[in-house]
């Protein structure tokens, strides 16, 4: 396993500003692919961060040469899919197709990215649907709790900040075709364009196709957005979001940690949090769920650490309204215990073998592979990093882990957020 990825992934740059990472596997006939360009919300004009998400939403609504039904027909008649997503940093796409249809699908992808048709009428119906989806998120206890937590932890325009649902609706409503066209013209292009594929695929075929399809495309954004904002100095805030007629409450306990994934303490801290709540055999699931039966699910993780962002850690759980306070108390007790005494060598060793094994199990399908390879590339890491990762984990010492818990975790300063229907 030591050189598994670096030996199998073929890295190339068929066009300047377009990097490819292609991994042939033993899968038969199927190919999954993923890609991204630096065109996410952070590159929208400051007055309206939703413009980029509407650009992404319009990419499957026709091109200069094909209307939206022709586009869909090309894909659906061969059972293929291409989906576009907008994130803080990226326009991302994922797709799959059968081996024999790769040519058709990649040609269409290029056309969608390079020559989208931005019709007023289409924008109007897309906005209607997006607003409908946003209205629906108002009844989603987990989403509303997370939005509230991120608004407490981060200031506006920080990549980890979240807009309220009403604000998003307001911004989506105001986007015009002119703004979409302008943003696409200004920021889409070659530069920070990464493309990964896995499955029954030849790297030469992919590179040849992409070179042909993206030849002559203009330059886009080359380097990730440089962050100049930090998390708020928030301490022990408490927020409750009432949502009627809900039988389960979503709770977050969270805190900004002030480090990104390049920081030397990142992996030791992540390991510490994995021991606390990374999987079913972690402490929180074993105590709050398995012993006490207070929740169906509880977990803890580090997020928001990409591209220099000062990330956060949070613990998330669901509780029946009548069990919320008891659940919260027990969760906080476990966090305090973990903070005061640290983790044990036995726990660290067990989680090291978990992560190494999980890595191996992740090779089972092509879908996971394309995404993992892309994520590594987006971070600016070489493919060797995918092989080094288990080694990085193996080399983490108990001392490093317990030191980072003390350094970054402040149990008394955790922000508490809950959303749902509260007991009287």
């Amino acid at each position, binding site marked *: 396993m030591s050189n598994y990825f670096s030996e199998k992934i073929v890295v190339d740059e068929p066009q300047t500003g377009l990097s490819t990472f292609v991994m042939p596997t033993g899968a038969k006939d199927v190919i999954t692919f993923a890609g991204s360009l630096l065109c996410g919300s952070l590159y929208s004009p400051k007055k309206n961060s939703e413009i980029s998400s509407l650009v992404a939403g319009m990419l499957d609504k026709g091109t200069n040469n094909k209307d939206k039904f022709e586009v869909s027909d090309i894909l659906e008649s061969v059972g293929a899919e291409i989906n576009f997503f907008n994130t803080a940093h990226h326009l991302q796409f994922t797709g799959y*197709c059968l081996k024999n249809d790769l040519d058709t699908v990649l040609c269409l992808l290029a056309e969608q990215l390079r020559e989208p048709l931005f019709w007023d009428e289409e924008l109007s119906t897309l906005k209607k649907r997006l607003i409908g989806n946003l209205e*629906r998120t108002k009844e989603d206890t987990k989403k509303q709790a997370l939005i509230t937590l991120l608004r407490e932890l981060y200031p506006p325009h920080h990549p980890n900040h979240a807009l309220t649902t009403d604000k998003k609706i307001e911004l989506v409503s105001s986007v015009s075709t002119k703004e979409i066209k302008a943003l696409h013209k200004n920021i889409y292009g070659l530069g920070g364009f990464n493309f990964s594929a896995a499955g029954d695929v030849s790297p030469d075929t992919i590179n040849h196709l992409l070179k042909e399809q993206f030849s002559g495309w203009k330059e886009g954004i080359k380097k990730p957005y440089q962050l100049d904002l930090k998390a708020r100095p928030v301490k022990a805030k408490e927020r409750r979001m009432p949502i009627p007629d809900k039988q389960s409450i979503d709770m977050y306990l969270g805190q900004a940690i002030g480090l990104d994934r390049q920081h030397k303490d990142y992996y030791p801290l992540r390991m510490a949090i994995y021991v606390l709540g990374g999987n079913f055999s972690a402490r929180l699931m074993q105590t709050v769920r398995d012993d006490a039966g207070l929740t169906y699910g509880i977990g803890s993780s580090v997020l928001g650490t990409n591209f220099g962002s000062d990330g956060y850690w949070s613990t998330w759980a669901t509780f029946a309204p009548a*069990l919320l306070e008891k659940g919260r108390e027990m969760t906080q007790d476990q966090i305090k215990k973990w903070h005061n005494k640290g983790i044990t060598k036995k726990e660290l060793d067990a989680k090291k073998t978990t992560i190494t094994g999980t890595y191996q199990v992740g090779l*089972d399908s092509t879908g996971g592979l394309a995404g993992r390879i892309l994520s590594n590339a987006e971070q600016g890491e070489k493919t060797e990093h995918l092989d080094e990762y288990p080694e990085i984990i193996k080399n983490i010492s108990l001392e490093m882990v317990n030191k980072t818990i003390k350094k970054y975790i402040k149990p008394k300063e955790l922000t508490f957020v809950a959303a749902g229907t509260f007991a009287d």
Partner: protein
Amino acid sequence: MPPKNKKKEPGFKFIKASGGIEEYRLESNNLRILTLQEHSAPVATFMVTYHVGSRNEAIGYTGATHLLEHLMFKGSKKFNKEKNTAIWSELQNVGAQINATTWNDRTNYFEVVPSEHLERAIAIEADRMRHAFLKDEDRQPEMTVVRNEFERGENSPFDVLDKNIWATAYQAHPYHHSTIGWRSDIENVSTKRLQEFYNMYYWPNNATATIIGDFEKKRALALIKKYFGVHPSSQHTIPEMYTEEPEQEGPRRIIVKRGGQTGIVGIGHKTPKGLNKDTYALQVLGKILTEGKVSRLYKRIVDPGLATSLFMYDFPFKDCGMFISYVFLTPETDHSSVEEIVLKEYRQIIKEGIKQKDLNRAKAQIKANVAFSRDGSYAVASALNEAIAIGDWTFYSTFMDHIIKVSRKDVQRAAEKYLTEDQSTTGWFVPQN
């Protein structure tokens, strides 16, 4: 078909092969074994499917199959917390993906493991097949865990509507209740009842063990024999569920009013048993109606902005099922206009049939789905599990062969036969602000 001698394994009887999958019976206890070797990644999936699901429950113990599935993780004779060999840590500590699921017709336990740890997965599943603890002191906290799972489902307007449509469409047959069960049954079912359930159904002769991925067949079968061979087959006959749903004699309708933001319309029609030949035409029909942006209902409803999304499902079950289309409305759209558009499309297909182009597209979509259902050992296990559940695992391996044969007339005839008003159950979720 490989030569016969390749399939001779001591202690096992070879039954049949299809699509690369081989079926054996462990002669000592009649455990069925399915194998599919695929060495593209150093990963294997082991799964045990018990032929028991929520269709085997009745009033007072709905949700028992699922609650029992949870208790199966609380420990068994060799794998438990006291011995420091708890099931979760034994498997997760080597990086395995481990879980279990319960549905109408089956309960399955699975482990996706680095190949070298396959034996551990087999040993654990064999031990808990007959030696699970099922203690009352474990049921108490696990009941509230499952109740929270139920409560989380109740948070979702779609889940609530779906439960209500099934409960309205099916009155006598146990598909009436969802697999999670009714809240009061989850809270009150006794440990004794769960133990009886376990002792009735958890036997090698009522289970299928499946091994897929990177393993050596001879050794894997030897491990199956070593660990599962210690169990006898049941002394009793596994009881058959015999309740049949009486014929529906008119359309049914249900409205759910709860706090929420946007409406949902669900229209269900009863379908035949999963192994009925019409299942293939109905699968094609479902794709034509709702799969993709050129599907008929997407073009009529989502594309003009009347809904944010839509989908349909028609899962083949052991007994009769349901062809249900769900539409998630945009804020200004009224339920009745969308309901009428869906029914109009149904009527049009019944009257005029479908175009060859639509049929070809649906088949291409299914072909890709089938290819991706072979992408990885877990994907295969997951799809195969549902075929095992309905009573014939070759439903999985021969599915595409049957789909290819579906004609335009077959689709029209299936629509005419099943999408009738008298067989329909329509549900609306009406949000209360």
